[in-house]
């Protein structure tokens, strides 16, 4: 089953074409890493897939249900209420966490399931505590975000995304705001999720991590998917010149 399918996505900012013609499929249980130089459009791709940016043309389906279709070369969006409902399909973990500072750790996790999904309180709280335990923060449920380290914040952000029971998770450079020691704890957590067969799309600059965790690696440059395939092919034995150059620069 395809959790996500994007066809011929095009995105412009003003006159600047940022995504040229992106097509992408993510299967259930698959872990896909997206790598590429700065400005190549990786974040924009995730933002289009999560409806934070509007794409100009192309089609998009979640769980094989068409959401955005194409008409006369233009992307047609459903009503915003319907679009909001589709958000149940995925979670997004940001580079800079974006926890709600006025909510405690527990409230950050339970608020959306209760007030958006209208799920039962007791059940949500129970699940949230289980999630906190899983990310190793069961003793922090009453802390406020400002009292946490960067790594702890990111673990809460992951728990918050998981609490919505998404079919897939997006990560946009989840560790680039973190110190190396803290990076390790987040990567470990993501690896654990991968082992549990969570479907994930991860934009990252951590090549070793991408190699270890991914089923598939996508290399993007200048708004197009230049190369994709198994990590041992794309990372260790790239066929494209641009990919080779990028990886060479990265290894310095």
């Amino acid at each position, binding site marked *: 089953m395809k959790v996500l399918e994007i066809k011929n996505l095009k995105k412009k900012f003003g006159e600047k074409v940022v995504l040229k013609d992106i097509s992408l499929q993510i299967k259930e249980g698959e872990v896909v890493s997206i790598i590429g130089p700065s400005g190549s459009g990786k974040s924009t791709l995730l933002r289009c897939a*999560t*409806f*934070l940016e509007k794409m100009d043309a192309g089609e998009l389906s979640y769980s094989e249900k068409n959401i955005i279709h194409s008409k006369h070369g233009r992307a047609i969006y459903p009503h*915003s*209420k319907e679009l*909001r*409902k589709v*958000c*149940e399909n*995925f*979670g*997004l973990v*940001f580079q*800079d966490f*974006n*926890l*709600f*500072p*006025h*909510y405690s750790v527990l409230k950050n996790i339970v*608020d*959306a399931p209760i*007030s*958006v*999904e209208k799920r039962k309180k007791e059940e949500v709280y129970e699940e949230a505590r289980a999630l906190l335990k899983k990310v190793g923060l069961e003793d922090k449920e009453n802390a*406020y*975000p*400002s009292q946490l380290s960067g790594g702890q914040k990111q673990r809460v952000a992951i728990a*918050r995304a998981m609490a*919505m029971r998404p079919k897939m998770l997006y990560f946009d450079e989840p560790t680039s705001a973190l110190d190396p020691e803290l990076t390790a704890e987040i990567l470990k957590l993501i690896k654990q999720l991968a082992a549990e067969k969570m479907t994930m799309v991860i934009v990252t600059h951590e090549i070793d991590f991408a190699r270890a965790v991914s089923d598939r690696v996508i290399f993007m440059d200048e708004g197009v998917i230049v190369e994709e395939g198994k990590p041992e092919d794309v990372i260790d034995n790239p066929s494209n010149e641009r990919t080779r150059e990028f990886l060479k620069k990265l290894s310095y």
Partner: protein
Amino acid sequence: MRKKLNRYALLFCFVLSFFLLPLITPVWEKIQAEKSDTTLVVGFDAEFPPYGYKDENGDYVGYDLDLAQEVCKRQGWTLVKQPIEWNSKDMELNSGTIDCIWNGFTVNGREDEYTWTVPYVDNSQVIIVRNDSDITELSHLENKIVAVQSDSSALAAFTGEGATEENLALCTSFKELQQIGDYNSAFMNLESGMVDAIGMDIGVAKYQVESRGETFRILETRVSTEQYAVGFKLGNTKLRDQVQDTLKEMVEDGTFMKISKKWDLEDCVCLGEQLGITEESTGEETESEAVLDNPKNEKEENQDTNTPKGNKSDILPVVKQLGEGMVATLSIFFLTLVFALPLGLLIAFARMSRYRILNWISGIYISIMRGTPLMLQLLVVFFGPYYFSQYINTFLPEQYMITVNLSNSYRFLAVIIGFSLNYAAYFAEIYRAGIQGVPKGQREAALVLGYSRTQTFVKIIFPQMLKRIMPPVTNEVITLVKDTSLAFALAYTEMFTLAKQISAAQTSIMPLFVAGVFYYVFNFIVAFVMKRIEKKMEYFQ
């Protein structure tokens, strides 16, 4: 789409109704007023003893008010004593918020501007100096600073159209002719040497010099002679005749003279003369009955002091009287916040809206509200509907003309509307900065979690905005406490206006100090409460 349109339409109507309120209310109140046509609203300057002022019990009293009271009694009307801001007297009269000006109101030079009764007081303009001053004649005023009340008869005597050659020459010889808002501050200026002399009506001068004791004296030579009468809106001869006939009756049966004696003004009244009646002199025994609260009598009782207000230095009664003004100040304060805080949020939304037109309107609104004086805005809200309708009428055929008659009770409403509209603009900008200061990642995180736009604002953005805006809001709120005193522009008697009136009546600046302490304490409490709220939100960053 249609639903959204509805929501915006509703919002628009809400804002619009706020602007229309001042237009609708007067009409409605006019309907009310016509039902009870038996009140006489007398406009007067409450800092103008002995004609009209506030006594130590906090009541408006005075010679003119006594006369008006007697007229009303005989006509079966209810007297409404409405203190007004002297500079706005014409607007008050024209817009119908008062029926007449009865307040030592000088006829000379204004003959064609009002419909007048015959004069009842012949008054003269005199110069008051400090007792220790070496000024004894008018010519000594050369190179001196002379104070007069703005738009007063004294000012007219020196600079008005009807001023004599000598007075004009005299005036140019002054170092400066200073206009001062009220007599009380004029005396403070004189006492402290900031001005060398004050020009004023003789009746007022006598009262002031008497009550302030040995400190001042009146120059022998008079600057000019003039007459007082009751002024009505031009053309309102019906009401004028009713009042004048009653006054005539009062002259004939001696009541007029009795009241004049009570106020020690028998030397300058001239109504009988004017009407060609020889006045009956009232006997001594009747006089003593009529003068129970005669200031002169009180003076005799208070042997130990040369001021007629024996309790001048008593703080407690002053505080008690100011309490009433404090209530007025508090209601302006709280009602303004109640309306301005939410209205500001609506304006902030309009300012940030995707719709150009809303952006544009709210931008202009904010710029006008912040770019013009609040006092001017208050005047526009209060008098605007009347003058606007007058202007419109110049384009309309007669049968479609609108008559807007502002009622007196619109005064308070106008104060609240004026303040709310003004403060809403300031709050709107504070909200906007607060909302825009919340990192955009917060909104995005909420959207991805499926929060609706409303939920995102209410649950995520608003609390964070609130924390950000507390310091600037505190500043605005403290400014509001002090700004409430601007209500004097519409002659709404809040605490500061009241303090000025009491200060004028008691010829003492103590009430002003007490008012200052009130404001300070009020602001102290406001600052304390705001600090507590800020503390409450310190749990997050």
